[in-house]
């Protein structure tokens, strides 16, 4: 899975959130979050369950529209254009076709010429170690295999930014380790990683910087080492203390 030299000219990063809020039926889930996501470091959105991590990520990715505030990309996407960001969900959603065909489908939607799709899809499968299962129906693969396939599908699109929403939450330790290895490889190939997790060990292993979210508010933003050694906010201190015994 080599680096493609093809890159769209202007980067879509940095991503700026300006006072972004999201509420459903009056219940505030994301509360006035402002920050900039720069290219480079792996960004981990950390926080307890229900902190609004997944919703914040969907707001960034454009799956949800903020109730108030703005989500601004440096070079905004236009409808109908190939997306330059991708997302891997907690539960991978596979179409009822083969593993390979699932990636080919994503490439087709992205406008990749027909002749190049199979080759790129197979290369992506090789990158996650699923090439031997290329012809298997995607939905009969195990949970771990499906998540790796989801990563291959996202990677095949060569996104500038890859959002990952608790990608290992449903996986056993072995499958989680494999998924983490793939995420590292995608990062090493130059894709910006933005990932949510509530797992402190994973945040330490995979993260460069932490956005700590608590009850919808951005409580703290810090480099990983600083965050874990000297958390500034009381909420982060409590979270680290409460969580550590289980990591």
């Amino acid at each position, binding site marked *: 899975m080599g680096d493609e030299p093809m890159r769209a000219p202007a980067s879509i990063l940095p991503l700026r959130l300006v006072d972004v809020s999201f509420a459903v039926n009056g219940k505030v889930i994301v509360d006035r979050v402002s920050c900039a996501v720069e290219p480079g470091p792996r960004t981990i959105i950390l926080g307890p369950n229900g902190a609004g991590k997944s919703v914040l990520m969907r707001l960034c990715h454009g799956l949800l529209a903020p109730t108030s505030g703005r989500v601004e990309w440096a070079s905004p996407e236009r409808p109908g254009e190939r997306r330059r960001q991708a997302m891997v969900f907690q539960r991978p*959603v596979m179409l009822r076709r083969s593993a390979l065909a699932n990636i080919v489908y994503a490439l087709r*939607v992205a406008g990749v010429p027909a002749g190049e799709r199979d080759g790129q899809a197979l290369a992506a499968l090789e990158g996650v170690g699923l090439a031997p299962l290329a012809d298997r129906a995607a*939905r009969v693969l195990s949970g771990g295999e499906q998540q790796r396939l989801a990563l291959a599908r996202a990677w095949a699109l060569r996104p500038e930014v890859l959002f990952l929403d608790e990608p290992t939450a449903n996986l056993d330790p072995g499958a989680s380790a494999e998924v983490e290895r793939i995420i590292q490889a995608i990062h090493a190939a130059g894709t910006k990683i933005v990932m949510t997790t509530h797992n402190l060990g994973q945040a330490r292993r995979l993260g460069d910087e932490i956005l700590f979210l608590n009850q919808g508010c951005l409580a703290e933003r810090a480099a990983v080492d600083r965050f874990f050694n000297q958390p500034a906010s009381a909420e982060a201190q409590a979270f680290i203390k409460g969580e550590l015994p289980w990591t």
Partner: protein
Amino acid sequence: MIIEAIYGAFGLMAGLDAKLLEIVCLSLQVSLSAVAIATALALPLGAAIAVSKFPGRQTLIVILNSLMGLPPVVVGLVVYLLLSRAGPLGQLGLLFTPSAMVIAQTILILPIIAALARQAVEDAWREYQEQLRSLGAGGWTAALTLVWDIRFSLLTAVLAGLGRACAEVGAVMIVGGNIDGVTRVMTTTIALETSKGDLPLALGLGVILVTLVLLLNAAAYTLKEAAQRRYG
């Protein structure tokens, strides 16, 4: 007498009795036409209700689900009133023709196919929506992807409609009139011949009808199972 009737029934079937064949053919023609029309209308309708939000949507879904159990005689009566000479569509002169029977069966099975399709599409949409939008598949691309992916569930919905159409007697009896050689189908013949006492023909048709419905359901089940195993 029953033994005799059964012998007679198999005799008719084995000999491919011309009259019997004609009745079976008309039945299939009427029901398949109704299914084709109902499917063309019901699948888009069900899909549209599944993916759109509008006031009164839940009420509409409840009504649609209730209409699955629409009594055929009531449908027959309503279509009869519409098509009868004094009715609003009386000038078309369709009453007591196979066309009238197709109309009645279409109305009967449209809610069945639409309701089942609505459920299937809604479940799939809930699952796929975010992923498809994330990949950049919107509008028609997403809709076609969805429909293709659940094609076996939709086929089951269509077959359910066909089974219902083949088996009902009330609607076709009222609007068709059970005219020999014109609008006489399997179910109406069975009703008539039974009351006349001609059990072999009634029984023969009964066996064919049940076999047909059985085969349909077996086909639907096998297909769904095979698809489940193949595609998950």
